């Protein structure tokens, strides 16, 4: 074998790749948070108080974990309509285990998380084995889980939860709620999994280009099942921490999670089309939704209007996602035709 040939200067295609084509990202959400936050600090006197921060922190913590769940499934190219149902079911199961069966808190929590993962695995298996769309499968399982929830509790919350469990929800460290730190820790773990761990990278490749992934040997079906299990695990996690915060295991937990579970990731730059996610973006998106809801209260706007604002924000987020994809199309077309325009017509031709 001859020595490696020296690379010729002409042969290098070393133009600096431009960043302009980067489609997803948290920057927009972060800017929006800063802008809205600034506006609210000015308009509402009680916005910047420590008390309000605590309220905001708990809200963001909960919402962000639910949003992480949807983010993961979206990145894999699917969706999960059962996040709220799983959260609620886990909440009452864990509450019931602690109140009715006197299961020790740590064990109950672990059992709840395990059940959540199992529910997700069920979702994933159904999607993969039946070939049905994730939409209809998770719509149906959401109904099953909610029904189980109501059937078990008959709509009645579990009020008598152990003190150590409730303490988790109330604990603060230097004024910062522990639950917020827990959420950040979860986010950090997810960030690590999706950027540095084989499983996470496999999931992302499946969401971005399933055929290329399959050709490379990525187990596409297994990845889909795993990501659904992960999503429901996170939904269960969110249900548990919300229960700890409330101090009561309410069957109605998760009722309003669906919309925001989509809104936060999309606002934060997770692509609807899959293949990309942004943890900071999700947190920023959760933050934005929370301060908007909070701001409405601060500004004494009727709380009945909150849903309207949520809906409009998601519509805006969808609009941004659409603009991004239009931009990508435009740039790709421009590149294709920049070349077609290059050679001038030769003499003798039209």
């Amino acid at each position: 074998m001859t020595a490696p040939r020296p690379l010729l200067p002409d042969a290098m295609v070393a133009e600096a790749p431009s960043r302009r084509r980067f489609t997803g990202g948290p920057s927009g959400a972060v800017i929006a948070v800063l802008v809205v936050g600034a506006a609210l600090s000015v308009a509402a006197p009680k916005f910047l108080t420590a008390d309000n921060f605590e309220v905001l922190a708990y809200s963001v913590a909960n919402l962000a974990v639910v949003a992480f769940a949807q983010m993961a499934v979206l990145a894999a190219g699917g969706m999960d309509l059962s996040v709220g149902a799983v959260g609620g079911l886990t909440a009452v199961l864990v509450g019931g285990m602690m109140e009715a069966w006197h299961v020790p808190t740590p064990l109950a929590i672990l059992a709840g998380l395990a059940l959540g993962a199992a529910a997700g695995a069920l979702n994933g298996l159904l999607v993969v084995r039946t070939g049905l769309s994730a939409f209809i499968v998770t719509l149906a399982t959401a109904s099953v889980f909610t029904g189980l929830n109501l059937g078990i509790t008959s709509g009645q919350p579990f009020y008598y939860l152990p003190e150590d469990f409730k303490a988790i929800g109330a604990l603060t460290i230097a004024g910062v709620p522990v639950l917020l730190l827990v959420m950040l820790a979860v986010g950090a773990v997810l960030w690590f999994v999706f950027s540095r761990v084989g499983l996470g990278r496999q999931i992302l490749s499946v969401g971005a280009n399933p055929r290329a992934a399959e050709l490379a040997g990525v187990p596409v079906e297994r990845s889909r099942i795993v990501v659904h299990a992960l999503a429901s695990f996170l939904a269960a996690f969110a249900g548990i921490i919300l229960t700890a915060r409330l101090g009561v295991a309410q069957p109605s937990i998760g009722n309003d999670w669906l919309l925001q579970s989509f809104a936060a990731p999309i606002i934060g730059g997770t692509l609807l089309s899959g293949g990309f996610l942004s943890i900071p973006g999700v947190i920023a998106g959760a933050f934005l939704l929370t301060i908007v809801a909070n701001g409405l209260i601060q500004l004494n706007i009727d709380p009945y209007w909150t849903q309207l604002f949520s809906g409009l924000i998601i519509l805006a987020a969808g609009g941004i996602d659409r603009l991004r994809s239009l931009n990508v199309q435009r740039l790709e077309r421009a590149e294709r035709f920049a070349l077609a325009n290059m050679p001038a017509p030769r003499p003798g031709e039209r």
Partner: protein
Amino acid sequence: MTAGSDQSTARPGASASLGRRLWYGLVRWDLASVTLALVVIAVALMIGAPAFHSAYNLRALGFTIAVTGVVALAQVTVLSVGQFNLALTSIGAMVGLLSGWLMQVGGLPWFPAVMLGIAFGALSGALQGWIIVRSGINAFIVSLALAAAYFGAMLGLSRGASFNQLPPSYVALGRASLFGVPWLLIFSVAVAAIVSLVFTRTVGGRKLLATGANPRTALMSGIATGRVTIAAHTLSGLLAGIAAVMLVARLGSAQPSLGSEWLLPSFAAPVLGGTLLTGGRVLIVGTYLGALLLAVIANGLVLFGVSAYWYQSLLGVVLLLALAIDRSRQSYVLRHQL
């Protein structure tokens, strides 16, 4: 492989036994699953719960099917073009409350109030369709967002109020029957007949199904798919409005919770009845059979004294089972080229 292995080009079963041919015919029939389920459950109920076929119970069933059927039709119109209407719950609530308000506070007679409500429903649907078509935003997200926005707008404007001082003549309509058959059911079937006519005998219906079957081909064949899609959403809103005013009459009151339980049945009934989620094919009769199945299941739970809370679970399980069975039925048909 199949019977008659030497008949490689003839359709399998062409000269097979009668039993075989019946089986193939059954497997090819789109309504096989739902009819089978209905027969099984109905027989089980008739044997196990004699109260099932009492006049009272059958009338109650009739009322349920009447509303569920129209709700399912509202989803079917959008399914026909291959999309979902996740906001029909909110549109229902808006229309119910608007009509209630017009009657109770506005003092309008029930007919114009109901007509205005239904028109408003159509308008809401039209807006949804317009946003989806013009902005190009992911239709799922638009529908999800509007579900919240519409509901929020309604809550904000009504402040959670409900209306139960409605004109007695209106409420009476909700309860009245003709020869034991509730008027609402007759009306519902009439609406279904009209919708069925639209899909089978009108140009508009053909265009809806073409757009759903293959939007690209439809566009390239000269169909204005954007307008067709908006029309589908408008019709959906209209039907959701009709279902809402029917329900208000039946209940005698208009509440913000109206329509909150509609989402899953609006998908389950059509799917059970053979309508495709991907668009291009609708079966109205099948949709009503599906609605009937859902109502009978709910009814059965009541008759057997099972808590109503388990209904949701059972609904989800039934839907999954029906979908899975239908999938395997379709692949069986494909494999044996029936």
